[in-house]
């Protein structure tokens, strides 16, 4: 178990490094940062000064190593735009994105798991097909468009919820629903498949032979065994949601990490972009690791292996 964890941790570090190198190279090779930073009216002299001030005249490898060395010590550099430490900028905006991501995941699970269970219990019937259709529709819905439609209908016409911003908790409802929408189909299909397998298993027959009630059989005996793949995918989906919240935050004008990233990309604020990429990659890797540990808790066979 310990060896397994060490291996995983080593792999995680390697993945992080690779993601960083790739994104660093991708963005740096794409154009001359100094020109972008200086803006359209800058003289050649301005650009040269900027290049020197930001250290952009050094070889790419040196720039990267310098950045990585600082990042390893927790120093993610300063924003060109805000002239403030990047770490602080991210930390300020993190609560919004995290709230959004977690509530989105919660909604997704609350919808997807019951639907998946229902679908599995009525496999092949009209109910099953109907739920499958809902999943297909959810999958085809462009999330930013769904957001706009909700803003028009729920925010403007019905006036039930605020249109943008998160001054009150109600502001999170629509964005969280939209974010959840994209994760529901995958989670639902997975719950359904797992439950179909579990419900057909011998231990469910044993549970029925004991005379247990249907609710207990489904929720205790079957769901527990169907939950493992769902946990893995839920973790991955949360990672995708945090990354995908950039679109939702733009639609609902929420000033979270995604919005910061969007802004930084549009304004060539390279250190911020690089830091957010690193941050999201670490979060993603951490989440998959956490999912593995959750599964070890759920499945006693993994624990003793």
């Amino acid at each position, binding site marked *: 178990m310990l060896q397994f964890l060490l291996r995983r941790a080593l792999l995680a570090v390697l*993945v992080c490094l690779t993601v960083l190198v790739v994104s660093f190279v*991708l963005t740096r090779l794409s154009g001359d940062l100094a020109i972008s930073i200086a803006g359209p009216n800058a003289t050649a002299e301005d650009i040269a000064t900027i290049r020197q001030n930001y250290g952009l005249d050094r070889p790419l490898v040196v720039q990267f190593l310098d950045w990585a060395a600082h990042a390893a010590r927790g120093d993610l550099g300063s924003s060109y735009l805000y002239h403030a430490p990047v770490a602080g900028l991210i930390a300020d905006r993190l609560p919004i994105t995290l709230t959004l991501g977690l509530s989105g995941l919660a909604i997704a699970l609350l919808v997807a798991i019951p639907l998946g269970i229902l679908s599995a219990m009525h496999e092949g019937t009209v109910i099953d097909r109907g739920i499958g259709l809902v999943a297909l529709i959810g999958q*085809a819905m*462009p999330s*930013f468009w769904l957001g*706009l439609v909700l803003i028009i209908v729920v925010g403007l016409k019905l006036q039930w919820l605020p249109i943008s911003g998160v001054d009150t908790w109600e502001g999170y409802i629509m964005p969280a629903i939209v974010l959840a929408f994209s994760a529901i189909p995958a989670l639902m299909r997975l719950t359904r498949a797992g439950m179909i397998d579990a419900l057909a298993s011998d231990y469910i027959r044993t549970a029925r032979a004991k005379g247990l009630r249907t609710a207990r059989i489904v929720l205790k005996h079957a769901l527990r065994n169907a939950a493992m793949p769902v946990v893995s995918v839920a973790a991955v989906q949360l990672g995708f949601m945090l990354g995908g919240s950039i679109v939702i935050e733009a639609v609902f004008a929420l000033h979270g990490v995604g919005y910061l990233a969007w802004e930084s990309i549009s304004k*060539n604020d390279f250190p911020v972009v690089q830091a957010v*990429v690193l941050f999201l990659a670490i979060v*993603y890797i951490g989440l998959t690791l956490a999912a593995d540990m959750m599964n070890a808790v759920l499945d006693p066979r993994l624990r003793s292996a």
Partner: protein
Amino acid sequence: MSLRHIAFGLGVLIVGVVLVAGVLAPYIAPHDPFAQDLMQRMIPPEWMDGGSALHPFGTDQLGRDYLSRLLYGARISLLIGTLAVVTSGLIGITLGILGGYFGGRVDDVVMFAITCRLSIPLILVALTVVAFVGSSLTVVVLTLGLLLWDRFAVVARTTTMQVRTLDYIAAAQAAGASRLHILSREVLPNILSHLVVVATLEMALAILLEAALSFLGLGVPPPLPSWGLMIAEGKDYMFFSPWVIMIPGIALFVLVLGINLLGDGLRDMLGAGRRP
């Protein structure tokens, strides 16, 4: 005829109609999609008050004919979807088959690449690249193609592993066939049905992502009539004229739904297992 067949038929119909609309756009579009007419701005669709038969779907904020833009937009969605799938398919299938067939170190490297790819925040990196390189159709296609290969790789890898142990592969090996021959002539055709299903999923995803990128202003550049861009441009007017975002949004939704229905139907027919 079962529900399943109806769903598949609907998928074929939708994709077929959009395809025809896109291909024939120059011939069936009533107007030039780029022609601005500031005297004819924000005319609502024909069926609404103030609409005119001249512009069946109305006009946008620059007075461009919405139906014509929608028809040309179909080309962009389909073009980007197809090219991105071809690019990502080439990368993903190659990696997946190599990993699945050779196993061992090669497979370790492939798995590592897949993990890395999944750890890269998709939209963020796509946006960054487009922002720094400059937005154009080619850049969007290449960016999406370089980022969406993970599912191809995963499916190609697992199916290749299953196929590898089968008798005819062993027979080909025993007959002294070259590795390239075995991989391209024996392995690939046998995993193709699974990959076709992945291709439909990825195409739907690529079309949605293009729309999202264009919506954020970092996809295909204006004045190209991308559906995502049309939604972005209509956003400022949506409170008074909701149809400016409804029309391209519904088009996008229907096309993606059609592709997904098509993929589901293909999966059932080809017996390509459960949806990943």
